[in-house]
Structure formats: C-alpha cells, structure tokens
C-alpha cells in the first residue's frame, strides 16, 4: 500500500562552507526523482526500506525488509547492490531474520561502498583519518569526480535519488557542529534545513522525524536475538592533550563524575601527576589541588612524605596513587601506594583520610579496587606480600585481612570483589587456579564447564548486580556464568589472544541477551552468550564504565552508551515491525501529513483490540529513547492513540512525560548527568537526583525540577534554597551585608527554610557578624536562641527568648547564663529582663531561697527582703529562729522606709507569735 524509502547519507566533518553548500543545494532544485514511486508495490504492506550509510569508525550498509519487501529489494538488488570491498557476497541472511548485513569491514583502511541502482550508480569512497573525520566522494554514473578533504561535491544525472542528506559540518566560526540536511523537492515539502547550534534556521518537522527515524535503526547491531546500539551521549567538553593515555581514570556509575589522574607513576618531584575532576560530559569541575587549598596541608602524613610545600598548583602532591574510585556519595577515593586512602569531595576539597593498615606501608599496595555493596562503598587492596585487605564500608571503617592465597607471589593475574550471601569475598586467579577468599578461608573453585584447554584466567569481571561473572582465559576464551560459580551461561572463543584492557558486563534488567564488552587497544568487542559478537573499532584510548543497563564508553573526544535495545523499542522501530506500537507511530505520522492512511493503520490496530497496548508501547519506548526528537514523536503518537480510547488511565503517560523532561534537563551537556530511564528509578530516587543537583550546585535547575514535579515546598524548593544559602554564606569575596541581602531576597519566607541553620553555617565559616544579620530574618525567635548562645551572645539570646514568649526557652537561657556567668553579672543581666527575672524568682522561691535573697539584696529591694524574711520565718521551727528572722524583716522594712510594716511587725512579734508558732 505504501512504501517509503529513506536513503540517508552521513558525512562527518567534511565541509567548511555552509553558504556554499546551501547554494549548491539550491542549485539542485528541479530534480525529479522519487524513489517512493519506484518502490510502490502493489498489494504489499511494506513499511519501509532503509538504507543507511553511517560513516564513522565503522561503515555498515544494511537493508532490512519483510518477506514481501524482498521483492522490492530484489528489484533493487537485482540490478546491483555492491558492498565495496566486502562485496555482494558478504551480504548475509541470518535465519529467521529478514536482514541483510554487510560485515567484514574494518575501520583502518579506507572503505568503498558502492550502490548501483539500475542505470544509476552511486559510489561512496570513504576514508577515515585517525580523528574520524570522513572524506566523501560521490560518484554517479560513469563519471567520477575527485573531492578534496574540505568539501563534498556531488554530481548526479537526472535520476540520482537522494531523499535526505544529512551533513554534519564544522563551521569555522564556532567550534560546534552544524547540520545541513537536504531534501529534494520530490518529497512533499522539500526544503533546506540548517541546524546550527541547535537552532533551526529552516525547519521542516516532518524532516526531523524522518531523520531521526532513520537513525534509530542505523546504529543497531544484531547480537543473537537482540540488538545492541551505541548512542552518542556527549561530545566531550574537555580537550585532553594526550587523550586518556597514561592516565588513571575513574568514572562513577549513574552518570557520575570522572576523575582523571595523569601519569600517576611519574615520581620525579619536579613534575607531579595532575588530578582533574570532570562532569560526565567533560566539563571541568576541579583541578587538584585547588588553588585555594594549597596552604592547607591535606594530611600530616602526606606532608611528611613530601616535606617541601613549594609545589606548583594543580599537581598531586601526596604519595603515588595506585587507584581512583568514587564512593556512592560522589566522594573521590584516592588509594595511595602506602595504603592511605584520601577522600576528596566533588570539588576537590580534602575531606578526610584513613589507612588500610600499618603493614601496607612496608609492603606497598600493588592493586586496589573501589567497589559498591549494599553496605556502602568499600575498598579492597592487594599488597606486595600478596595479601588482600578489605574495608566493606568506608563510613564505618573495619579492616579485614583476608587469608593467604597458597602459592601466590607478587601480582595475582587477576581478581575481583564479590558480594554474596551478605558477605564480601574476593575471587582471585593465581596461575591455573581460582580461589575464593572470605573472612576465614581460602577455597579453590572451578568454574563449571570451563574447557580444560582454556588455560589460566587472565581477566575477570563481575556484573553490576554481582550476580554474573565473566572470565577471560589466556587462550582467548570467555566464560560467563553465575558469580556463585554454580552455573555456566556460555563459553565463547573470542579469537583474541591478547588480554583485554577492560572487560565489563553489559546487560539490562530483563535482558534478552546479556553480553560482555571487552576492550583492547583498538577494538571493542561485544560478546553475547549466543556465540555471536559485534566488533566496534576504537579510535583512541577509551574507558568502559559499567552501568545498570549498559556500558558507557568514554573516549577522549566523545562518550557513548552501549546498551541492548529494549524489547519495546525493537518492536516499534524494527523495520517491518507489525507491533501495535509501530503501527500507531505510523498512523500518527500519516495523520500529521493529513493522510487518510492514518485511519487505515488505526483501524488495523483497533481490529486487533490492542490500541491500549500500542499506546503503552509508545510511551514505554519513548522512556527508553535518548534523543528528545524521538521521544517527542513517540509521545505524540501515544497521545494521538489515547484519543481513541475511553477509560485509559493517563498516569503512565503523564509520569513518563514528567520524568523525560527531568531526565532531558539533567542530560544537558552543561549539567552532564547521562541518566537513563532505567537508572533513574532504580537507585536514583527523585530525592537523590535533587541532592545530586544541589551537590553540584545546579541550584536553579534543582528548583525548576522541584517546581515542575510539584514536590511540596518543604521537601523540594526549600531544601534547595537552604543548601544554596549555606553555600552562599561561604563566599568569601562578598560582604556580610551583600550576602545577607541576597539570601533574604531569594529565600524570603519559604516554608521550612530555617535562617538559624543558615546562620549556623555562617558561624561555622567564621562569620559571626553575618550569622547575626541572618538571624534577624528568622521569624521564630525561638530558633535564634541556641545559636546565639553558641556564639556567646547571651544578652541577645535572652532578649530573643523573652521576645519569643516561650518561657521554657527563657528558662533554658537563664539556666545557661547561671552556669556561664558569675553571679553578679548574671543578676545584672536578669535585671534588664523583667520577664526572665520573675521566672527565675519563681523558680528560686521553690528551689533556692538563698539565691532569692541574694537577688533582692542585689537590687536593694528592702521591701521584698522584709517579705522574704517574714516568709522564711514561717518555715523556721524554733521560736528564736523565727524571732531572728522577723527582726531582720523589721530591719529591712525600716530600710525600705516602710515604717508601717516595721511597726506592725514589732509590736505583735513580742506579744502574739505568728500563727503556727503556738504549738511550740
């Protein structure tokens, strides 16, 4: 019924003059070639034929079609399809999969891919330079035109069929890629689209979809039943002089930061290694040691090792570092050769240090690993004397020295940390043997089903969840199985003799085809348990980071995410897929074009009664896509489908929309947290995400996220503001006044933000004046008091307490003052605060009558003193005592010039005793 052919040509970094290109493309108007027409086949229901040429390190040409499409392909192919050096013979058909794959291309040599379509032939000459820039030559017909490295020239006779060109080009002004897409007038709205710096100069929405659709399957690679894709996450912001060579690199999972230590082994004191911290997108966060911290000695031990402090900045001045790792709290752990572990925060400020044991100082650390377990972050080291030491949780440090490994001398060939049965163990390979070390014992183990001729194990890797284990033997065999070594999953011969530099599990929850990614110097190999494998050539030094649902490949210029394509995405985007979601997407696309075909597709879904599933599929697939345009297309399709449903809960749709917006925001390269939708709920709850944003000081974004997700203020916005304010008060370059004003303006009276907490922070930073200014904003005077007391502003504290009207608080301050001041000052202070004074008097009346007397004495309050003596005379049981007391009362009354009371008292005292004395 309908057939689309998308031909996409990708040209990398080849062109410099945009204008020229635009001009050229304009010149190309008036070509009337529509492949669409050509491919219309009666009675078939072909959804699409895709020919994708992706030029990068690997070139692949692939056409996938359904059974009925083979006709079309045959018609094309019948004329001539040429796969360059690989030749037509390399087009293979795997069973059950209507898929043609061109394999056998290697990256190093220039590639030629030739396509011939009947009278027309298109030939591409591709060559790759070491930096991956491609030069493209296009040839049409019999003529051949050479091209220079800086421009793309195409020539065609009347029947050349480019539907879409996408050209990535380097504009000379900004060092940013711009994109030029070209579309022939054959399509309904042929136009020129220039995307520069993410701005559309001339947009055609249809085209964008078309482009992204085309790309979705373009980077899919089959592995067994599943597909693997490599998505580019970022072009790295950093510019590393020597790439990642000779560096210790540690990247935290969940899109965490990257730490880079250059030339860790150089020991000459003049040039020390440099430590730098980057965000996942390569934005520099800190270089170590940070300039301001130079004066502070990081720790006494370190300075004793290197006594001269006159070191240039930005250099590591502690001992040689063996290993870097990130803790779950985004703290950088640096394991030194002498067993000291230094902990830095994200911004390179030193936090604390601990040692892995005294004996390590002598024997030195050979290797170390930082691992994450349910108990937190742990550190494992192996020392020069081949002994292992473990610390399961660095927050609660308990060192465990593991038993000796029999026959192990020097470096173990490889080892890994396992967490099993709530125990942390070490799996170590020593020669041909494999041992499991736990607290008490060292047990020899044998991986089940490992062929005897495989040889000793030279590399091992544990999966993200500690459930699976991969072992690489010296003969190049890869064994995978459960990490408890009870079951084998597969054993594959990789045909690679060298030990891989890195080996990481790549799987996702409910994975169809878990795989292990192995990295050699110039090769990335994805090996599934089905003996199938995918090869990716590597241009430069890269680092693999195992994630929950894939592997991040960090190179010196870009970062990619390698992952298994989720089933739902496969269903939707697989060429010729008839899944409800795929049909819905197609229906929506037609609808956008105002085509009546939309109805046909929709009817088809509805006939099967799967529209609900279709919507769900689209929503789910959108969640798994990384590209916002694809997400949008899918969500629009879902929303379109939703209209035809009654009683369909919009919850999933709404939540996914929200989550995607948040995720897209944090993936932004300036923020640099490439979280996938699977990782987001797994460990990164919303709270954690906001905390991480706050920790990285992305306050506006964090606030926006809170507002957008309608998190209650006291949990969301207020918390962010609190952190912001706490950070703000530490800014040394601003005056107290300015900071106080800024804080007040921003924080205002947001609920749940306590100015006293902020003030406490200011006080900690040694700014008592600022603290007092901030305290003035605190509405609840009760909150101000504890800090004021701490700051020894007891007078102020007392008056604030009185102001609060909370007698308990007044009393707290009074008690504090009583213990803190000498009696005279204390009384004087009370005197100025009648409320506190009367409170204290009440207390004294019952508890400390003598103090009460002193209090009156201090004030020369003779009247009250007289009263006091009278009262206390009641308590005296002896008559003489009473008389003495009353006499004192008379004296006091006299002093108070209260003659009346004095006289009244004198006469009856001698005649009648006060009531109660009678019994004596």
């Amino acid at each position, binding site marked *: 019924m309908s057939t689309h052919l998308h031909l996409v040509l990708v040209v990398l970094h080849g062109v410099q003059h945009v204008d020229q290109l635009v001009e050229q493309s304009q010149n190309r108007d008036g070509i009337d070639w529509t492949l669409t027409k050509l491919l219309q086949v009666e009675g078939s229901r072909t959804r699409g034929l895709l020919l994708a040429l992706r030029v990068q390190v690997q070139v692949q040409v692939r056409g996938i079609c359904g059974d009925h499409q083979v006709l079309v392909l045959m018609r094309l192919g019948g004329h001539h399809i040429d796969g360059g050096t690989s030749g037509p013979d390399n087009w293979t058909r795997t069973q059950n999969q209507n898929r043609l794959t061109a394999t056998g291309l290697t990256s190093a040599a220039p590639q030629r891919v030739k396509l011939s379509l009947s009278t027309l032939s298109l030939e591409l000459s591709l060559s790759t330079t070491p930096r991956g820039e491609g030069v493209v030559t296009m040839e049409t017909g019999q003529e051949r035109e050479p091209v220079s490295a800086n421009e793309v020239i195409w020539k065609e006779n009347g029947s050349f069929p480019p539907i879409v060109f996408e050209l990535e080009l380097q504009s000379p002004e900004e060092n940013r890629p711009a994109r030029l897409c070209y579309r022939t007038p054959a399509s309904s709205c042929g136009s020129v689209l220039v995307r520069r710096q993410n701005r559309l100069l001339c947009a055609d929405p249809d085209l964008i979809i078309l482009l992204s659709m085309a790309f979705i399957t373009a980077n899919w690679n089959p592995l067994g039943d599943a597909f693997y894709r490599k998505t580019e996450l970022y072009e790295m912001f950093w510019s590393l002089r020597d790439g990642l060579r000779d560096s210790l690199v540690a990247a935290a999972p969940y899109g965490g930061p990257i730490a880079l230590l250059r030339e860790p082994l150089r020991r000459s004191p003049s040039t020390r290694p440099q430590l730098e911290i980057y965000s996942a997108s390569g934005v520099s966060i800190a270089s170590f040691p940070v300039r301001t911290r130079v004066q502070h000695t990081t720790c006494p031990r370190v300075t004793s090792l290197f006594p001269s402090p006159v070191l240039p900045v930005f250099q590591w001045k502690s001992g040689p570092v063996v290993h870097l790792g990130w803790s779950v709290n985004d703290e950088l752990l640096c394991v030194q050769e002498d067993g000291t572990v230094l902990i830095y925060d994200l911004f390179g400020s030193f936090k604390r240090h601990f040692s892995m044991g005294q004996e390590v100082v002598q024997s030195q650390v050979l290797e170390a690993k930082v691992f994450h377990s349910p108990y937190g972050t742990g550190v494992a080291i192996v020392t020069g004397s081949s002994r292992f030491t473990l610390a399961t949780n660095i927050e609660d440090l308990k060192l465990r020295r593991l038993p000796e490994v029999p026959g192990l001398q020097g470096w173990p060939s490889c080892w890994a940390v396992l967490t099993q049965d709530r125990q942390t163990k070490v799996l170590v390979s020593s020669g041909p043997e494999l041992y499991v070390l736990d607290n008490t014992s060292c047990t020899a183990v044998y991986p089940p089903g490992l062929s005897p001729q495989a040889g000793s194990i030279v590399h091992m890797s544990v999966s993200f969840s500690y459930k699976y284990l991969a072992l690489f033997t010296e003969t190049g065999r890869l064994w995978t199985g459960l990490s408890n070594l009870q079951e084998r999953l597969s054993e594959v011969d990789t045909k690679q003799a060298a030990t891989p530099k890195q080996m990481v599990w790549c799987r996702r929850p409910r994975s169809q085809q878990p795989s292990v990614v192995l990295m050699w110097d110039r090769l990335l190999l994805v090996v599934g348990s089905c003996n199938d494998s995918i090869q990716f050539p590597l241009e430069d030094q890269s680092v693999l980071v195992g994630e929950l649902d894939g592997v991040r490949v960090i190179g010196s210029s870009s970062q990619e995410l390698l992952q298994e394509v989720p089933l739902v995405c496969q269903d939707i985007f697989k060429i010729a897929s008839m899944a409800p979601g795929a049909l819905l997407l197609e229906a929506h696309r037609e609808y956008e074009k105002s085509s009546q075909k939309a109805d046909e597709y929709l009817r088809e879904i509805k006939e099967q009664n799967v529209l609900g599933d279709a919507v769900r599929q689209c929503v789910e697939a959108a969640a798994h896509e990384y590209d916002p345009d694809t997400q949008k297309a899918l969500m629009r399709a879902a929303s379109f489908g939703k209209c035809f449903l009654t009683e369909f809960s919009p919850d999933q749709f709404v939540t996914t929309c929200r989550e995607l917006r948040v995720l897209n925001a944090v993936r932004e390269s300036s923020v640099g947290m490439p979280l996938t939708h699977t990782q987001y709920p797994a460990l990164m709850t919303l709270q954690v995400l906001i905390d991480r944003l706050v920790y990285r000081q992305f306050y506006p974004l964090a606030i926006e996220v809170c507002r957008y997700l309608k998190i209650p203020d006291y949990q969301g916005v207020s918390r962010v503001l609190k952190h912001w304010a706490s950070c703000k008060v530490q800014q040394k370059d601003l005056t107290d006044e300015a900071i106080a004003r800024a804080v007040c303006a921003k924080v205002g009276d947001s609920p749940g933000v306590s100015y006293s907490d902020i003030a406490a922070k200011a006080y900690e930073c040694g700014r008592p004046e600022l603290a007092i200014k901030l305290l003035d904003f605190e509405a609840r005077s009760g909150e101000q008091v504890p800090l004021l007391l701490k700051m020894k502003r007891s007078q102020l504290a007392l008056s604030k307490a009185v102001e609060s009207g909370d*007698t308990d608080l007044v009393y707290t301050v009074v008690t504090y003052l009583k213990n803190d001041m000498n009696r005279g000052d204390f009384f004087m202070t009370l005197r100025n605060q009648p409320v506190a004074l009367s409170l204290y008097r009440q207390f004294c009346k*019952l508890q400390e009558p003598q103090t009460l007397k002193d209090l009156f004495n201090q004030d020369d309050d003779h009247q009250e003193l007289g009263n006091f003596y009278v009262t206390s005379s009641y308590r005296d049981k002896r008559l003489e005592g009473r008389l003495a007391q009353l006499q004192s009362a008379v004296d006091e009354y006299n002093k108070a010039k209260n003659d009346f009371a004095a006289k009244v*008292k004198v006469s009856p005292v001698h005649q009648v005793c006060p009531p109660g004395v009678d019994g004596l």
Partner: protein
Amino acid sequence: MAHSARRDSPELPDLSLLKRLVRDQLIYLLEQLPGKKDLFIDSDLMSPLDRIANVSTLKQHEVDKLYKVEHKPIVSISDQYVLLLVTGGPLICFLIRPRIQTVKWICDVVNADKAVGKFRRYKIIFTPQKFYACEAVLEEQGVFGDVTTDEWAFYLLPLDEDIISLELPEFFRDNFLAGDQRWVRTAGSALHLLHSLFGPFSKVYGIGRCSKMTYESWREQVEQGEQKARHAEIGNVFLIDRDVDFVTPLCSQVVYEGLVDDIFRIKCGCVEFGPEVTSSDKSIKVMLNSQDKVFNEIRNEHFSNVFGFLSQKARNLQTAYDKRRGMDIQQMKTFVSEELKGLKQEHRLLSLHISASESIMKKKTKQDFQELLKTEHCLLEGFEIRECISFIEEHINRQISMIESLRLLCLLSVTENGLLPKDFKSLKAQYLQSYGADHLLTFSNLRQLGLLVEQQPGETLTVMESKVGKLVNDRAAVKLTDAFSSLAKKSHFRALSKKLNLIPKSEEDYDLRVPRDMAYIFSGAYIPLSCKIIEQVLERDGWTGLEEVTRLINGHEFAVTGADPKSKSDARRIILVMFLGGCTFSEISALRFLGKEKGYKFIVVTTAITNSSRLLEALLDNNI
C-alpha cells in the same frame, strides 16, 4: 428568662468533641504503659479528670489504684506513702500539672525507693504540657534517668455547652502577680486547638498585655502548623485580661448561678450541697449545667426572681402530676413510661434548688446583705464614700469575714483609684489587728497588683499644690490638698464608668424581671466593665472611638482581621471570649444576655471560673 430571645440565634458548635479528643489521648497514653499501674493524680486534677474519664474507664486500661498527690514530705520508711509505694505495682504513673513542687515530691518518692533498693518504672504525665524547669528539677535531683515523661494535651475542659475552662486557677497569680508568663503559651495552645477544630477565625480582638502575648503565641503556632481549609464554626474571638477589669469580680454576685458559686462553690461545673440544703445527713453532688432543666432556666436570673420562678415551676409540676387524674389505663401507661420519669427528675431538682435558695436567703439576710450591697453600689457610683469607709471599718472590726473585708477594701481602692494615705494606714492597721499580722504579705501582694493601693500624695498634683501652697498658709493647704485629692478621686474607674455609661441612672426603677441591659446582674447598679467593652468593640467592629477607654485601661488593645474566605454568616455571630485570669458566672450571665439581645452566641473560655473569694484567696500570702 422573661425576655424573648432573637429567633436567628446561631447554633453553638459541639464542644463535647474536645472531651472525646482528650479522652482518646489519655487512653492512648495509658495504653502505652502496658501492665497494671498505680496512678497518682494531682489533687486539683481530680475533678477535671472525672469529667473526662471516670474510674471505670481508667480501670479498663489497667489502672490498679488511684492516689492523690499530696505534698507531704517523705520522712521515714514508715510513712504512709512509702507503705503505699512498697505495696504498689512495678509501674507508677503520675498525672500532674507541671509544678516544681510536685515534681520535687516525685523526686523524693523515687529517691526513697532507690534508698530501699526497690526497682520500679516511673512515668510522669504532665498536663497540659511539660516545662523545662520541671525537667531541670528532675535532673537536679538525679532522677532524670529513672523516670520517663510524657505530655497529655488536656488544655480545655468544656464545662457546659458554652463554657470552656482551662482549669488553671494558678494562671491568675502566676501571670499577674508574679509576672511569670509560663502559662501564656498554654493559653495560646488552647486557642490554637480551638482554632484548628472550629476555626478559622475571621476576626480577633483583644485587650491587655497577656491577651496580646497569647494572641502572638497562637499566631506563631498557626504559622508553624499546616493549615487546612475548613468551615468556620466560630467567627470572632475576643481576648481579655482579668486585670483590665477587677471591679466586676470584686462585686457580690446576685445572679443565681453566681450566688451558688459564691456560697457553695461550684467546682468544675459541679456543686456539693451540704446537709443544710439536702435536709438529710448526706451531702449531694449536683452537676450544674444546661442539662439540668430547672437550673438552666434560673441560672441567669436575678435572685429576686428565682423564688417566683420556682414556685411557678412547682405549680406547673403539680398540674403535670395532676393530669393523672381521670386518665384511663392506656393514658396512664404512656404517662408513666414517658413523662413520669422526667417529672420525677424535675421534681427532685426543683426541691433541691428551692432548698438551696432558702439556704442562700438565710445566709444573706443574716449578715445584713442589703447593707453590704448598698455599700457596694455606693462605691461603684462614688457616693457617700465616708459612710462606706465607716461600714468597711465596722465590717473589719466585727470580724465578719476575712475575705469579705478584704474584698470591700479592694473594691474601695479600685473604684477610688487608691486610698488616701491616712485612710489606708488606719484601715490596714485595723485589718491586721482584726485578722492577724500575717496578712502583711497579702497587702504587699495586693499593692503589687494594684488592687489595694495608697494614693501617693501629690503625685499628680505636686505642681498645682506647690503653686497653691505658696499662696495660702499651711492649714489651708491641708484642706486644699484634700480637695485636690478628692478631685483626683475621679479615678480611672470613674472615668471609665462615665465614658461607657456603666452606672445606669438610678432615678428610674429598674425592673429586674425584664432587664434592659447587662446591669441586671448587679441589680441594675452596674454594667460589668469587661462585658461592656466586649459589647462596644463588637458593635464598632474594632477599637475606633474607644481610644480614651483603652488609654484609661492602659492599652495593649488589638484587632486583627484573619483570613476569612467563606465563613458562614452564622459563624460570624458565634463569638469566643477568652478571659485570661478567670471570669465570674455573673459575667457569663451578662454575656448570655448580651447574646440574646444582639443575636450573638458567646462561648466563654476562661483559665478558671473565679469569684471574689477565689480571686483574693489566690493573693493571700499567709500560708504556713
């Protein structure tokens, strides 16, 4: 009451909710303490507790024995408390007001236990809240670790459908005499509780320092808590300090309920009639509230009407009984099953109130009550002060009643804005000789509170005096000074009474059966100042026009309009009046009257029900 009420009086909110809340909380607290326990209760918490949860409820929650906390020191092992404690269960629970004295007593108990090596668990439940000072005492005495503490938020006890009491008699003395503001927060919390149950209030008025502080404390708590939008059941709130108006509680009450309180002392809405009323050996405890139909009709009546009313009632009752005659069996049956019980009940109450009234009559006529009232009225009006003083002197010298004499003295001083020095000296000397020198301290307290003060000679008149003094000789000057002093007698009270028309014109006859204004509660002699202020403020919707009055009272007035989105018009006419420092039954009667006149309903919240005796007893300082 003969006066017909306005039809559109709004319905009062259901205050028994407060009771249920508090009971549930107490039960929850008791359930937190599993096992049998002995409960020690502060003596003045006994009757309020009884209104909340009776003994059987307590027993249901495994309270084994109940004891009263008495502040007797524990001297030796043979002491009865130790005996009790030795026999008592392993868990002892104290339910007390947060008073240092009580806490000290508990410390002694715990320490005594420790001394004999007995291990027990102690729980102190403070109500309505705990104070830091109490904990400090526990710490000081070294038992902080041995006891656990909790709070029972028992702030409000509804005594009747329109009276709520905090049952904090010490509020008055602590706050106004000792200047100790610890209870202000309690009052604020009580207001907060009412606000959260029946609010939001649309307008809050108040006068007095303590009121202002209470308001602020409440405001603070509202801001800290979360707000829920509800239907307001109480519209306006009026906060008033006791020290704004001392005159009213110092006057003899002549409304029935007030009289009963003056003579028999109503305790927590419950009165105990002694043998002279019950005409038997036993005394009877009677609940006095709106449930009691007879009482409900006479409580607000001037006493002179009560007899007439009661006899009318008796006649009605008789007619009701008489209906029996000439009934057939069926009618008789329904009569017995439906009416008879009610009639019997009414009968019993009627006879009780009649004998109570008789008893009141006896007491009041005996001591020349009319004379006393006349003196009071003279004092209020400021007539014939000399005669009044002689009456008071006689009263003192005949030693009629220590409190009564003191009351008259205070009334004299308050209405006259202080006594002349020579009067003051002589009256004070006579009083001390008559009732004992130990009242010296009482006088000091009264002076501090401004209830009984000496006019400072020439304080306000010095300038004038010195000018005049130069002109005339000494003798004349003395006279002149007297004259000026009498000028100065145009005291605050005088000025206020003139300003607010507190004293109705005495020429016309005041018909106490059909009262015209609130003055009927004092036999038409005086409109209570506190109630008059409330009336004026409500009428004017604020303090505008009352500037002079507030200046005389000495300020701290406020009127705040709260958030008022959609309160029912009914709610606007329900007014919560909070007396800080206590209020009298007469004032409540006056407010009920005012409500009927203007179509308001008042709910009175008070820290405690007070009267002249309670007010003055709180200020006595002759406790040994």
